[in-house]
């Protein structure tokens, strides 16, 4: 079986790991995802009263 031919084994291994480590993760990590929108029935907490002026 030609897959058992030992000649390009190491080269294939090194090259595939090289591609796997350098090319793909930047493309995967580049995707950014927005936060899930919160459902409507979540109540906002009432603001605590404060004793200093606005500005």
């Amino acid at each position, binding site marked *: 079986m*030609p897959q058992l031919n030992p000649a390009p084994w190491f080269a294939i291994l090194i090259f*595939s790991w090289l591609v796997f480590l350098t090319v793909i993760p930047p493309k995967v990590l580049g995707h950014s995802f927005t936060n899930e929108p919160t459902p409507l029935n979540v109540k906002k907490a009432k603001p605590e009263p404060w004793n200093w002026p606005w500005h």
Partner: protein
Amino acid sequence: MALNFFDQFMSPTYLGIPLIALALSLPWVLFPTPSSRWLNNRLLTLQGWFINRFTQQMLLPLNLGGHKWAVLLTSMMIFLVTLKMLGLLPYTFTPTTQLSLNMGFAVPLWLATVVIGLRNQPTVALGHLLPEGTPVVLIPFLIIVETFSLLIRPLALGVRLTANLTAGHLLIQLIATAAFVLLPMMPTVAILTATVLFLLTLLEVAVAMIQAYVFVLLLTLYLQENT
């Protein structure tokens, strides 16, 4: 004659360039690197959606320690699925039919999960070697069996991928040859064979995706045991 069909798996060289290098480096043109824009085009949105959902599904069985592996596992899935789907097109070469590639990925990643397990929680990791509830008499035998099954995992991972793809490609080539040869002599049989070929190709598409998924899934399972 049978040996001729295996020639499709020889690592091809053309004008001195090993074509497997092209087969490994060019598919990533299909995955544009996202910019910092929030609004992407359709292709990026689709890929981003897939990555998001897949990562979420994959990280479900893992505890927080295993979440560090998210990038690696997602990259692995994209790598395998892209290479295999492209390899199903006619006249393309599938690098994942090469045993060297699959073993080269299976052995280090499996070894990493085992070493992590042995470093962080050696008792639990070794405890996996003995299933609960074994009769006392069977304990030594079962430990040997479990150790062997642990050690054979990387071999199984790599060879499973290689063998499934190789067998699929071989079948496609065989049936295609049969249909082509039968066409002048018995057109009806040729049409039937062509139908079989079509169905087989659909199967191969499914197998390609499933096998990539299985590879990654098993890695997550090994990781789950060991984190």
